[in-house]
């Protein structure tokens, strides 16, 4: 199974009530395939439909039209909801509202307990997951003693303990300070590289999308761009037109280029820029 997640012609609308309130279309005929092990960043401004898209992956929402497959399982199948949710875990924006238990390790165990796994095995997987996110030393803390970034890492541990094929993160860094954002990003990147977990990372921070394998830009319920970060961020004007930014250095390079300095157009990080700029200076 190469394609882990597959959207076929997916449309979705929030249905209006009987009193003639119009239903609100959110997604329009989306076709999308995500392979096992990919790190996909989904970008889009508020109300673009990126969260709605994400909620289709683990059957929180079901398409009004079209089909979503997770490892070949149709998400509209009521019987298979928990099968799907074991394969696709979801981390939300507010770390406070997704931790259930009063102790870190018990919270990580929550999902496994729901699956009815034997206690010894739960213990083993909880410890493993806590090590993976670097929160093992905090296993006996209460969630309210932790920082935002730490809480979010605990939430991630709770998901990876269930051994999902894919983690969907819905703006997990939006409520964190820069340090918390770094912690969370590093954790996700490591999970993707070391465990081969597929990551769907929804964000509106451009610099977070830079390190992804693939960037999908969603606008008005449609996929506007779907390519490598280099390719996507080359289209500075197109991104700005849909209310998105590009990473700061990319913007700097873009402005220099506009002013006649021949700097390359696939600069995403500060080291990239430094290298390219040195080349120009030498020339």
């Amino acid at each position, binding site marked *: 199974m190469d394609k882990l997640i597959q959207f076929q012609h997916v449309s979705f609308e929030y249905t209006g009530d009987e009193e003639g309130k119009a239903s609100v279309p959110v997604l329009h005929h989306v076709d999308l395939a995500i392979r096992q092990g990919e790190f996909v960043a989904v970008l889009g401004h508020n109300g673009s439909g990126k969260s709605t898209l994400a909620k289709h992956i683990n059957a929180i929402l079901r398409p009004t039209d079209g089909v979503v497959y997770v490892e070949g399982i149709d998400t509209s199948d009521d019987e298979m909801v928990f099968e799907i949710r074991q394969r696709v*875990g979801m981390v939300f924006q507010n770390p406070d509202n997704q931790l259930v238990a009063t102790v870190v390790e018990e919270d990580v165990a929550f999902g496994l307990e729901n699956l009815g796994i034997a206690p010894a095995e739960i213990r083993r997987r909880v410890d493993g997951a806590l090590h993976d996110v670097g929160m093992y030393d905090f296993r006996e803390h209460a969630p309210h003693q932790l920082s935002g970034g730490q809480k979010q890492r605990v939430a991630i541990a709770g998901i990876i303990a269930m051994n999902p094929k894919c983690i969907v993160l819905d703006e997990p860094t939006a409520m964190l300070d820069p340090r918390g954002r770094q912690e969370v990003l590093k954790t996700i990147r490591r999970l993707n590289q070391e465990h081969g977990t597929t990551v769907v990372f929804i964000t509106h921070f451009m610099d977070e999308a830079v390190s992804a394998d693939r960037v999908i830009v969603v606008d008005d319920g449609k996929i506007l761009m779907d390519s490598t970060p280099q390719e996507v961020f080359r289209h500075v004007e197109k991104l700005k037109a849909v209310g998105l930014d590009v990473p700061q250095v990319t913007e700097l390079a873009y402005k220099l280029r506009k002013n006649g300095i021949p700097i390359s157009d696939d600069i995403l990080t500060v080291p990239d820029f430094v290298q390219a700029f040195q080349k120009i200076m030498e020339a």
Partner: protein
Amino acid sequence: MLSDITIGQFFPGKSVVHRMDPRMKLILIVAFIVVLFVVRNAFSFLLLTLCLGIIFAIAKIPGKAIWRGVKPILPLILFTAILNIFFVDGNTLVSFWIFRITDAGLKTAALMAIRIVLLIVGSSLLTYTTSPIALTDAIERLFKPLKVIHFPVHEMAMMMTIALRFIPTLLEETDKIMSAQKARGADLETGGILKRAKALIPILIPLFVSAFRRAEELALAMECRCYRGGEGRTRMKQLHLSTLDWISGSIVALVFVIAIIMNLFLPGTL
């Protein structure tokens, strides 16, 4: 600030009392309360008090904490004692105007006072040495048989856990809302009771709205982690009764039996 409030009255520790199975502690406390209301003998009460004192010493609970538990109920003790002294019939000891103090009245007053104090101190021993989570766990497991009559044991325990989890979060939020309203000129500190109660409304409404929003998000997150009620659920931490529990449980049970025997055969009934 508000967030300084600790949940419950738990004193973390590693003593034998702390390490005992919460179920055993819960059962012993219930037994203790029953014994308390069965015996009427001064020597039995002395023995029970001594036993409590020793356990408190083992658990290293500061005396101040015990006093803090008793203090709020002092008026209640005083009130029942006064009622008992003046209104229980018996041989009159002293009398003035329409009041008379009887021997039976004094005895009943003493009996009630001792019972209430021991009851409070005994049950606070449980909450001082057992974390709220362990207590919730113990309740869930002890009440499991009630599932037969469709009592929602798991749901109750889950509600308690979530409540405990969100107490600090909501306190923090209350703090924030209070600051926000103060910044907008809300006056929370002056005026009569009615005015102050009214001033709370702009704090409670946002707090409720946010609590419901949190509840909705939490429910979604729980569903995403395959939560579907207590059916087929396992627990990572298993409670098991160790030798320690059996030994300490037996000792305490023995004390209870001796207290009852003393009550039957020794003079000094209150």
